């Protein structure tokens, strides 16, 4: 029954939260309208036939989010220094990382993490060979980057989504 009315509870929950934030009110009418919009858009989202998403480990997801925020702050400062320091060009390049992660939401999360972190960009992903190509701004040690991405991000994402 709940599945019928609310086929995508996470999506609808996010939409309701966004609605309430935008309306800046918790009045009963706003809440009711928000619930209706969230349920309707949740059903519409289902028409896109998205692959099923399961979040298996919520505490780990929260820890990963905090870790990513810390990493974003650190790499912001690192890239700012690279831009501001006098002279000297940085050595940058492409790095191939072979992944075990295959869940589409896990990969999407990894793409957001890698690209949101200044200094690394997700370039290409080969889903048949499971190889990810990224570009690194300050490429000193290729193996260290591969290890970093696999240990810090891929391992928790595997546990959360797969």
């Amino acid at each position, binding site marked *: 029954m709940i599945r019928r009315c609310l086929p995508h509870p996470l999506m609808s929950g996010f939409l309701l939260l*966004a609605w309430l*934030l*935008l309306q*800046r009110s918790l009045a009963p009418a706003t809440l009711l309208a928000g619930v209706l919009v969230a349920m309707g858009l949740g059903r519409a989202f289902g028409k896109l036939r998205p692959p099923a998403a399961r979040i298996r480990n919520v505490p780990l997801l929260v820890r990963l989010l905090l870790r990513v925020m810390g990493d*974003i*702050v650190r790499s*912001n400062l690192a*890239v*700012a220094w*690279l*831009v*501001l320091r006098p002279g000297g*060009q*940085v050595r*940058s390049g*492409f790095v*191939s990382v072979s992944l075990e992660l295959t869940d589409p939401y896990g990969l999407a999360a990894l*793409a*957001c993490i*890698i*690209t*949101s*972190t*200044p*200094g*690394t*960009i*997700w*370039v*290409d992903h*080969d889903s048949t*060979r499971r190889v990810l*190509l990224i*570009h690194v*701004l300050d490429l000193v040690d290729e193996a260290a980057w591969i290890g970093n991405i696999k240990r810090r991000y891929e391992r928790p994402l595997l546990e959360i989504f797969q």
Partner: protein
Amino acid sequence: MNHLDALPPWAAVLVGVLVLLGAGFAFVGSLGLLRLRDFYKRVHAPTLGTTLGTFFMVVASIVCFSVAQGRPVLHEMLIGVFLTLTTPITLMLLVRAALYRNRVEGQQRVPPPR
């Protein structure tokens, strides 16, 4: 002059510092766009503006309007959420377009197609 005059001094100072920090990161990101030498390096720089730059601006806005209106004003957080979700798509499209072009041109420093 305007309703921002109603902010207590501590809030005005805090908001000022946050706005300057946010603008600073956005500026360094834009400077990187100018100073770094090739396309693949340049696309890294603007992420400063979309991460910490946006973060400080959003927090400044939340503090400013929450204090001025005397109740929590949090809808700015959605800006951060949507930027984090959409920036990677733009950057990936740009980088892949460049990579495709460089591969067609036969440049040696880009990884070959599989």
